[in-house]
């Protein structure tokens, strides 16, 4: 019967994630149908396990299920682990359900950027090797469209952005916009850009520079990476790691030594501290 409770625990946990909407803090919603299917299967298995237990223990007193765990396994078809080992393996199954249901869900922040790092392509001028495409910090959406379609799209998107003298990036167009900006920073020089993200101070940066990042998610939180830009202040900035801000700045380019490449950055015009958004992550959603 302990198994039925554990299966029920998984069912409740998954259903709760979907009902509360917290599932977006773990996986890309594009794949939510998978975990919904899993929830339904767990529900089904719970019912089957309950019936199975009653069937194979037909003569036992059903009012005392908790006793059953200690006394009933002689009659089972399958051999089960006993005593302490059984207890341990129950703990393993209960643990994720428990921490998932009761511990606060945290949003990935600078702790993870510290551990995982962020990569920026070492770009050698004139290198047109397709395998040397730059990707980090620069979401490459060419992946979703054919080469031709992609070029067209980029052209179209670039057009969409290029005629504006102020580009505002939100949850939906963040990855797309970052890509357009990184793809062809030259034509956006001097354009104003506004976006939200959290502060990440990299040790090698001057104290008037920092990164503003957002985590982008492919499948689930475990495969996320950060996207964003370097921000340059006129003077020293006291912003702390993980402070969410909305930044407006003018796009410029510079040679950035640690990355050994030219990157676009924002010369800050205006920056205000904001509350962390409800949806802290951006997703690959096409």
């Amino acid at each position, binding site marked *: 019967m302990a198994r039925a409770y554990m299966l029920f625990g998984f069912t409740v946990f998954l259903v709760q*994630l979907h009902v509360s909407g917290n599932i977006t803090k773990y996986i890309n919603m594009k794949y939510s149908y998978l975990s919904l299917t899993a929830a339904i299967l767990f529900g089904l298995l719970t019912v089957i396990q309950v019936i199975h237990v009653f069937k194979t223990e037909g003569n036992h007193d059903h009012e005392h299920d908790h006793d059953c765990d200690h006394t009933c396994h002689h009659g089972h078809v399958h051999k089960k682990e006993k005593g302490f080992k059984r207890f341990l393996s129950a703990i393993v199954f209960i643990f994720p359900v428990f921490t998932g249901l009761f511990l606060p869900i945290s949003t*990935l922040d600078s702790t*993870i950027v510290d551990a995982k790092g962020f*990569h920026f392509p070492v770009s050698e001028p004139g290198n047109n090797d397709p395998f040397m495409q730059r*990707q980090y910090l620069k979401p490459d959406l060419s992946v979703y469209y054919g080469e031709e379609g992609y070029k067209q799209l980029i052209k179209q998107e670039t057009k969409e952005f290029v005629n504006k003298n102020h580009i505002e990036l939100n949850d939906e167009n963040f990855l797309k916009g970052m890509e357009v900006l990184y793809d062809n920073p030259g034509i956006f020089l001097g354009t104003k850009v506004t976006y939200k993200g959290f502060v990440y101070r990299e040790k090698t940066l001057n104290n008037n520079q920092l990164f503003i990042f957002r985590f982008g998610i492919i499948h*689930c*939180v475990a*495969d996320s990476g950060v996207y964003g830009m370097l921000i340059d202040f006129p003077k020293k900035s006291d912003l702390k790691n993980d402070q969410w801000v909305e930044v407006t700045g003018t796009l410029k380019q510079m040679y950035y030594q640690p990355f050994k490449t030219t990157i676009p950055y924002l010369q800050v015009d205006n920056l205000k501290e904001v509350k962390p958004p409800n949806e802290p992550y951006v997703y690959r959603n096409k």
Partner: protein
Amino acid sequence: MGNSFFHSFLQMNTIFISIVVEALPFILIGVFFSGIIQIFVTEEMLSKLIPKNRFLAVLVSVLLGFIFPGCECGIVPIVSRLIAKGVPPYAAIAFMLTGPIINPIVLFATFIAFGNNIHMVILRCLTAIIVAYITGIVLSYSKIQNPLLKEHTIPVNYNVPLKQKLWDVCVHAIEEFFSMGKFLIIGAFIAASVQTFISTDALVKIGHGPFLSSLVMMALAFILSLCSEADAFVASSFQSTFSTSSIVAFMVFGPMVDIKNTFMLFNNFKKGYVLRIIGLAFGITLLLTTFI
């Protein structure tokens, strides 16, 4: 300090839960398949399907992955069930190694992740097939003929009504879920801890030269324990810092051996056999990607 540890713990827990939530559907598919094999597939059917000759048997198994989509968290229960049903272990293992890589869904994801570049897909696919083929053949000369830890074979009566069979599949799936799920959860926990507490960035920085960079990428694949459908996207983000061959190493070794399925393997197979599988897959991937 205590506070910052708790903070890191919560971050770790979030990654942990996300791996579990992501993997659960796949392990459920795996245990259901395992149940279906147990209840519906007879030993005779399998022995007809797999050629007697070991070279052919491994070849068939290696290529089976093309039509049989499996992912690395769901495939271990399927493979141990196949062995219990009489499939030669070396053939089953060869299938286990390529299954999560050469299936259509993963190949398509790889195609997409590398900017619609078929070259990377072919490299990944070929390397995986060669590694799995050699591993399978070497294993077929191994002294361990029955690598399973316990005799899974519960005699099955094939002459029961369909309704009863379907019921048995479910009961069997539950049984399997509890024996496999445990190791998936422990593996996910370790992978999440490593991601949070050990600087993978530092690891990445050591990786220079063909040998070292393949080694580092394989270590990374093992540690990150990504789903084989998502790993290509992560791999592509390393394109600039790592050579093509070490990225192939990442995408070949990761789905074959990572923290999650190592735990599941040790739970199902004899220690010596698991070490051989890991050693072979590791050695051959490293060799191939260093010298090609």
